[in-house]
Structure formats: C-alpha cells, structure tokens
C-alpha cells in the first residue's frame, strides 16, 4: 500500500497540484525569483485570447474526426482480422507496426511523402490521373489539418483494433450459431450480437482515444508546427507556445488546467451517456 501511495503522490498528485499552483502565479523562467500571485489573471488572459479559441475549435475537429475514424476503421479491421484464415496471425502482428514506430520517425517520413514538390503521394496521384495538379498537403490550412488527422488515424487505429479484436475473440461462437438457426443474416448478426457486445469496450476505447488525441502534441508539432499560420494549433500546442515561446509559464499552466477540466467533464458525460458499467451493477 505504501509504495502505491508514494508513487501516486509523487507522479500524479504533485504534478497536478503544481500545475494548478503555477496557473495562479506569473512566472517567467528568466526571472525565477519573481512569482507574484495573480489570482485568475492567467485564466482571463487565456479566455480573452482569440488564439485560444481558435486552437480549441481546431482541437475539437482534430480530436473528433481522429477518434471517429479510428473507431470505425478499427472495428472494421478487427472484424476482418477476426476471420479464421490461414496466416491471419501474420497480419495481426504486422498491424502493430504503426504503433511501434516512434512518432518522430513517422512524422519526418510523412513530411517527405506529403511534400508538394518531391513527395511520392503527389507523384502517385498525378501518375494515376486522380489529381491534375500538385496538392499542397501541408501548406494549406484544411489540407494540413487533414494530413495531421490522417497521420494520427494511421498510427493509433491499431490500438482500437487490438482492443476490439480481443473482445471479439471472447464472444462465444455458439451465439452466432444460435442466431443463424434463428434465421439472422450476417448484417443482423453484426447488429444484434457483435455490436451490443462491443458497446462497452468501444466506450472505453473512445474515452481513451479522445483524451490522448485531445492532449496530443508531438504529431502536430513535428508535422506542421501548428502551421500554416496557426491553422493546426490545438490546445496542447497553444499551451506549449505560451509557456515555451512566450515564456508565460502561468498562462501555459492555466490552459493545461482548462484542458484537464474539459476532459474530465467530457469523459464523465460520455460514460454516463453510454451507460458503461451499468450492466455489471445490475447483475
């Protein structure tokens, strides 16, 4: 019990308390001895900053589309990989690949792939006749956001696949046999048996993916640095920008605390809506 308490206090409670403390002081790292207590000035600064609201909107787009795409593609791939085919285990293993490669490697590769002038993506699409002129993947606002989302979906869909596949493998095959005898076709079997059984695990996956994507920093930073302009800023980039580029540690901490509050409220609401854990309580 003691090791648990110590590690929780050291690595969980203290950083949060420190972040909250920091959000109430003005702290410029160049003048570390001068930390006046400023009440809610940092929060007011954040809430009055148009860039915060722009970043917030972009964070919602970034998180919403990424999570939805990961959930849908993840379930689809998991269903495919659940088929009892010869050699399927090789594919199940390969699937982990995007998840294993470090983000910095992926981001740098993607910047080459998506380079408007010399990237292979434009080259292939042009050769195939799908596009007639080069697409500026990373240097127009919409395309930059789409590319960042694509990268995130590519890298983290395997997580969804693994979790969903694990759940699929625990659904007794007799249930499908019973449904076949009852006359249910493949679509009805998916809707009435598979999907309800996946509901709980999907609730968990969506919460995790939402939290992790909302807080994601390195993919956007490495791929677009928030650009072009500020068109791919999310709140993590905003907080980093305030703290590290503008040396406003207090403001950075305040935006971090706001993110914490948003995620906490959002997760609780979502879990309530999906009824996660209700079945267990009923039993």
């Amino acid at each position, binding site marked *: 019990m003691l090791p648990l308490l110590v590690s929780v206090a050291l690595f969980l409670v203290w950083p949060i308390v420190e972040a909250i403390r920091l959000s109430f002081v003005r702290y410029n790292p160049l003048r570390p001895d001068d930390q006046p207590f400023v009440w809610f000035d940092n929060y007011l600064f954040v809430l009055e900053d148009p860039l915060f609201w722009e970043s917030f909107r972009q964070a919602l787009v970034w998180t919403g589309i990424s999570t939805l795409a990961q959930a849908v593609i993840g379930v689809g791939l998991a269903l495919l990989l659940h088929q009892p085919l010869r050699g399927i285990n090789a594919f199940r293993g390969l699937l982990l690949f995007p998840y294993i490669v470090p983000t910095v490697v992926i981001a740098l590769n993607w910047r080459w792939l998506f380079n408007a002038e010399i990237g292979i993506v434009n080259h292939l699409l042009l050769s195939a006749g799908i596009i007639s002129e080069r697409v500026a993947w990373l240097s127009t606002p919409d395309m930059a956001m789409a590319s960042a989302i694509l990268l995130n979906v590519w890298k983290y869909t395997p997580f969804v696949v693994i979790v969903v596949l694990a759940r699929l493998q625990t659904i*007794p095959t*007799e*249930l499908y*046999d*019973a*449904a*076949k*005898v*009852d*006359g*249910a*076709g493949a679509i*009805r079997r998916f809707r*009435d*048996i598979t999907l*309800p*059984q996946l*509901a709980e695990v999907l609730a968990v996956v969506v919460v995790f993916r939402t939290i992790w994507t909302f807080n994601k920093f390195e993919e956007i930073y490495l791929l677009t640095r928030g650009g072009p302009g500020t068109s791919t800023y999310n709140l993590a980039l905003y907080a980093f920008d305030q703290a590290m580029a503008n040396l406003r540690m207090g403001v950075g901490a305040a935006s971090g605390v706001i993110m914490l509050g948003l995620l906490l409220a959002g997760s609780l609401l979502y879990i309530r809506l999906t009824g996660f854990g209700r*079945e267990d309580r*009923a*039993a």
Partner: protein
Amino acid sequence: MTDVAIRGLSKSFGTNRVLKALDLTVPSRQFVTLLGPSGCGKTTLLRLIAGLEQPTEGEIRFGERRVDGLPPGERNIAMVFQSYALYPTMDVARNIGYGLEVRGTPKAERRERVGAVAKVLEILHLLGRKPRELSGGQRQRVALGRAMVRKPDIFLMDEPLSNLDAKLRAAMRGELRRFHLDLGTTTIYVTHDQLEAMTMSDLVVVMNEGVVQQIGTPEEVYARPANLFVAGFIGTPPMNLIPARNEGGRVTVEGHPLPVAAPAGAPAELILGIRPQDVSMATPGEPGTIPGKVWMVELIGSERLIEVEIAPKVRVTAEVRASHRAALDDAVAVRLDPAQIHLFDPASGQALPREAVREVGARPA
C-alpha cells in the same frame, strides 16, 4: 411431421474424417438420441443436420425436401446449445422471440406467442430479465422456450443438460421427455450420458469414430449389443468382456466348460460378454462355475461389486447385494447366467447371432 433421412454423409476437417459415409433415418415424431464418447462425431452430425457445417459428401433430407446446402435459417429447425447460447444483451422475452423478430412476425403476435411459451415453461415472471440474472435451470428453460416458440419441424439438442447440477438434471430429463410427448416434434438429442439416452429416447443411435455402431430402442441396445463397442459402452458398471474358446461347439472360459453352446460356424477364439448383474457368487467346485480369487471389493450403495480374478489379468465383476461379504484373496467361484451371455467374434468385434446361443446341460468338469 418430418422424418430425417441421411444418406452417405461424410465430413472431414482437413485430413481428419469425422463422419464416414453415415446412413441414418430418424422417424417422424420420435425422440432419437445420438450417444457416444467424446470425439465420436455426434455433435458434428447434429451441426450438419442444423446446417452449421457443410457436409463433404452425402445428402440430408427432411421429409421430401433436400436440405443440405440450405442455410440453417431456412431449414425450420430449432436448436438448444450446450451453453444455451442466450443473447446476453437481450432480455428473456426478446431472446425467446428473436427468431420470430428476424422472420418479421408482427409485434403483437410475437408477444402473444412468447407469452404462451413462457407460461408453459413457467418463466412468465422472468421475461424482463437479462440472461446473466438467471440461474442455470432458468437459462435452460429460456433456451427451450426459444426453440419451442417457432414451432419448428425438428428440435436439435446438443447436450443441453450437461451444465446443470445432478438433481436439476434428473428433473429436466423428465420435463424434456414430457415436452416431447406433448409437442410430438421430431427430436435429435446429442449426449455422452447413457442414462439420459436410456431414460428419454425412443431410439438410441450409438456412435463411435464417425460410424453408427447400432440403432435400436434403449432396451435393444442394452439387452442385445450389436458389437463389442456397444457392449462395453452401454451399461453401468460396464459389461465383463473376457476371452473364451469354442471347443467343439461348447463354450469354455480358462478351460472351464460353461452350460452354453457356441453357434454353428463360430470361430475357435471368442469373447464372452456378461453384465455384472448376471454374475453370481458360488462355492468353488460347483459344476458350471469358474473358480478364482477375490481381487477387489467395492460398495456402491445397495449393491457390492466383487471383482474375481479367474486367471492372471482376467477378471470378472459380479454385482451382488451389499449384505454379501467377501474378503480379498478369498477362494471363490463365479456363476454366469447362461441366458444372459453374449458372444462376440474377436476379429470383427460383431456379436454372434443371439438365437444360436443355446443353453446346454452342464457336464461335470
């Protein structure tokens, strides 16, 4: 009503031949049990009849209609699974009515039919519950309800009682039999439990290694086993199977002549089968008995099993009253009831014609 005709049915999984050119007719309205040890192919046969597996060869007909090739939903069958396979996210009413729902039965009619079945099964008060809130016996009833509600041509049951405790199993055996008599639906029931097969069936199909060994009423497979497998598989405690010889038309065991004549054309080497209930204890030296030593004594409630070694490694078990006392290594003798002796050809394993096993007068040993 529908009979089931199976012709030349084979099923292989890879190189493993699970069913070997099987022929079987299940008469209409009968309760037929597929009985055999694990891996004998009985569940595979049931799944082929259900349409959950595709045969490698052969055909299956329900009445005049050829069904192999049809999906399970178009065969108008109902199946009860070993694990019951209730849909965990649906309540009991929807579980029972799901087959009707899939077939587009109107909601009002569905509710009425589910209610009627639930009433028969005495589960009306459970209709709103989820399967996880039910006991094993209640789940069993819901599974039965789901099978009954569609008024299928054929009921298929895959060891439906094996997950129940012993007491409940005995009660459900009676109920299943009762439902069958009431509904009169052709039923194919898979079990490895010979007690279930004996108590519930009109016909028992004994299977081993993908081949039908014998088809008959419970009385027939018990009293007249067709071969060594059936003889050894049916009956508790199992039948004694001991080597015997045909010496000039007379059956002898370890050189002791028995008051039984071998049928004409019987081979010189025989296997003699006799149930422990048909073996009695005797005093050594009495004519027609086989002497030996008591090797093991077991009390099984009202009876006692006495295992007598009549030759090295050759033992005969007698089931006698519990009041009969015997000590290990006592010199005793066993008497085999001549009318209950079965003779088998050790080469083919087949039973020799029973009519020919005649009793002959004992002659002094």
